[in-house]
């Protein structure tokens, strides 16, 4: 009898524990968070129901609403960052971009993140000489740093002197710069560069800092990080959060912030950030994780999709002898079924783009990339290769492991069992990328419509980040041809010539099958329902928080 009682008690205890566990697992259908269903027409049931957000359009879906005048007293906005930014001077750390977008400004601004709407910011006007070499910017006289000091041309000189030591890329076409007077800045280019306007003068990550503070504290001290943006850093708790305050009566009325206090909360774990979004302690997060996006939709939170980069699988012919043969590279390109991979690994969210290079100007795929595994196998056999001769290892960072495994499985199923994959952490991958000690690596092409030369700067120029794109090892003559096209594009006097050379260069890279193609990454931005005015640039994912406001 006593034994029976004992069993009952134990069973009851176990049942209670299991019920408690299930309750925990059950999620929160009744989330207190936001509801995209406030307007039933916006109700979505899956990520694929959401259209890609256009630049210059409010990602929260309230484009028709009017933003309030000035700063909304008492409003707070919590944004998620999964890493700390110990030093946030604009030249220090590319990861600081989310902060730089808010606390710095530049000569020009991509208004609401739209590259087709470039307006004056610190510059009230600018002129370009007829030969396209000399750019003269006239600075606003009322512009101020967050500490109240007036902005002068010498501040740019001091900032750029430091910046080009840390970030040389935006200065690649700059021959010299000088302060003509306190409010006039002259930049001379070494060759005409039609894309110059999209980079050094308009990227907020290259924003200006106060010369006096910079000279006093040096380039690696946060006390030098005094910017001209619509927000300033009021408090930084290392490893915890940044507290940004809106500048009252900001000198640029168009960019006046509405949220009084913005917190950038440092949360290492994406799932915790999701919980924060669900309990309302975080107002916005972004992710490329399909599962997180599905959770956002399941919990009736607002989700916007932004186009990000593509990640072709670059083939390193310098490391793997067999990859020097263009037939092998093309044969491999025929063997990957990208649509299946996208459907299998990412619920079909990440589409297979028609090019290595995203954007309207990108070239079309050639037939070399058509999925035809039989043709691929036949090409290899006709060229005298055994399938077992094709041996290389695909280096994967943890964000892409699933994709790599699925892709390798496709090769293995066709008999190419010598193709394997290995996962390292992101930093190791980056180190191996720079040193070229890998066989194949899925790396974003660096392509941004606003800086279309970047992937080639990284891939064609010696010492670049992506020596995988070097044609040298595969075909020196083609490499010389590519280099000539790059130089012609970089020194084009007008956009038309530039685009023409770029298209030829992109076609050349694709026709050489230097990569196995890749998936177009889509970045999801999740918001609580009370957020309005989120304008996000595609690819760079720049979010200008000065336009954000909270619903009444």
């Amino acid at each position, binding site marked *: 009898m006593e034994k029976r*009682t*004992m069993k009952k*008690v*134990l069973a009851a*205890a*176990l049942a209670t*524990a299991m019920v408690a*566990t299930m*309750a*925990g697992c059950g*999620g*929160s259908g*009744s*989330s*207190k968070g936001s509801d995209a269903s406030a307007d039933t027409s916006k109700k979505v049931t899956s990520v694929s129901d959401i259209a890609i957000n256009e630049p210059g359009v409010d990602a929260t879906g309230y484009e028709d609403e009017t933003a309030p005048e000035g700063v909304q007293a008492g409003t707070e906005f919590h944004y998620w960052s999964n*890493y*700390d*930014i*110990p*030093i946030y001077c604009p030249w*220090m*750390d590319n990861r600081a971009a989310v902060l730089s977008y808010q606390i710095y400004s530049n000569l020009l601004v991509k208004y609401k993140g739209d590259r087709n709407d470039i307006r004056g910011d610190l510059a009230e006007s600018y002129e370009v000489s007829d030969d396209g070499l000399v750019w003269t910017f006239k600075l606003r006289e009322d512009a101020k740093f967050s500490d109240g000091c007036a902005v002068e041309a010498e501040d740019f000189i001091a900032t750029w002197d430091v910046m080009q030591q*840390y*970030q*040389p*890329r935006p200065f*690649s076409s700059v021959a010299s710069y000088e302060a003509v007077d306190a409010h006039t800045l002259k930049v001379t280019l070494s060759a005409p560069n039609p894309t110059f306007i999209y980079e050094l003068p308009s990227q907020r990550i290259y924003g200006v800092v106060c010369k006096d503070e910079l000279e006093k504290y040096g380039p*690696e001290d946060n006390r030098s990080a005094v910017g001209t943006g619509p927000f300033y850093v009021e408090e930084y708790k*290392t*490893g*915890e*959060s940044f507290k940004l305050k809106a500048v009252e009566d900001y000198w640029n009325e168009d960019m006046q912030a509405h949220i009084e206090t913005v917190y950038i*909360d*440092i*949360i*290492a*774990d994406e*799932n*915790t*950030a999701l*919980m*924060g979004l*669900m*309990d309302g*302690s975080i107002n916005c997060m972004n992710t490329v994780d399909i599962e997180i996006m599905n959770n956002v939709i399941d919990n009736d939170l607002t989700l916007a999709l932004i186009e990000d980069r593509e990640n072709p699988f670059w083939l390193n012919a310098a490391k793997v002898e067999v990859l020097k043969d263009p037939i092998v590279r093309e044969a491999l390109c025929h063997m990957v079924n990208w649509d299946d991979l996208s459907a299998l690994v990412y619920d079909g969210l990440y589409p297979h783009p028609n090019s290595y290079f995203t954007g309207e100007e990108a070239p079309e795929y050639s037939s070399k990339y058509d999925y035809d595994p039989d043709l691929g196998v036949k090409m290899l056999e006709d060229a005298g290769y055994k399938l077992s001769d094709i041996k290389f290892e695909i280096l994967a960072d943890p964000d892409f492991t699933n994709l790599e495994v699925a892709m390798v499985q496709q090769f293995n199923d066709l008999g190419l069992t010598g193709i394997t994959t290995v996962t390292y*952490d*992101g*930093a*190791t991958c*980056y*180190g*191996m990328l*720079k*040193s070229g000690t890998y066989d194949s690596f899925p790396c974003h092409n660096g392509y941004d419509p606003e800086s279309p030369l970047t992937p080639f*700067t*990284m891939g064609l*120029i010696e*010492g*670049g*980040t992506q020596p995988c794109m070097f044609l040298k090892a595969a075909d020196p003559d083609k490499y010389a041809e590519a280099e000539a096209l790059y130089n012609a594009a970089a020194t084009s006097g007008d956009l038309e010539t530039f685009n023409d050379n770029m298209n030829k260069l992109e076609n050349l890279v694709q026709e050489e099958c230097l990569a196995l193609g890749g998936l177009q990454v889509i970045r999801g931005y999740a918001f609580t329902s009370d957020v309005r005015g989120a304008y996000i640039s595609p690819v760079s994912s720049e979010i200008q928080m000065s336009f954000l406001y909270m619903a009444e």
Partner: protein
Amino acid sequence: MLKYVIKRIIMVPFLLIAIAAFVFILLNLSAADPVLMMMPSEYTQEDYDATAKEFGLDKSKPEQFVNWVVDAVQLDFGTSYKSKAPVSDEVLFRVPVSLKLALITTLIMIAIGVPMGVMCAVKQYSVYDNIVNVLSKFLASIPGFWLGLMLIIVFSVDLGWVPSHGMNGFKSWILPVFTFLLPYLGNYVRQVRSAMLDCIRQDYVRTSRAKGQKESVVIFHDTLKNALLPIITLTGGTFASMIGGAVMIEQVFAFPGIGLKVLEGINNRDMPVILACTMILALFTIGAQLIIDILYAVVDPRIRSTFSKKKKDNTPKLATEGGIK
């Protein structure tokens, strides 16, 4: 006793240097070149050499290690390869966070675990003992990260009682502490029970009862006091492992502790950060072990007597011992 403590303290720096050397060698076996990782997308050989010199990476490995040790003694752990900020600034402020988390958890673990374990031992095979036993096994087998997320869903998202993350006041410590505590508690209770049962069956306990001592005296004075040795070992070891082992808790609850920094350092191949964190964690582990050893000596007269000055022995010696010829 003092000699015993001094002897243990003298060993600490040697242990730390040995650990540092071990970690340093392991890190240098990594494939990635730290200078390369710090370079911008475009650089010249001069830039590379200048960066290597700036971070002392142009010197031989033994030289690098000696320089690091000399600086570390002055609490200068170098500059982070990733952020370029002083490692001391990035790491030292995290120590109190991890320490506080581990300390609170340990205290609660003792407060709950010892009485529960004692009760289980005293009422062995009772309903209470069986329930606690099952519950302990259940708790000990729950993965911390999963438990954390479940607790957040229930208590933060659904009920809204406590914050889901961050360190904002008393409430924000509740979930991390309990997430950390529960799996440890399950194991702790079982160990305390086991230690008590070992003692409770001893002859001196039976004798004590036979002499008519009150049950409370038998349990708390005669049994628990003697069961303290394994409990102290367990508590100290648990505390030491908690300081460095809170990575999951710190990750899930966004607590800027030292465990999270180690993880970040490892992910970034940031050698100065990894070395600094490892040394701090080693120091706390060694410190905890030292305290355990001292407590051992306090609690156990046998250990104390080993290190006490030998008193003149007046006891008559047997002929076989050379006393009487």
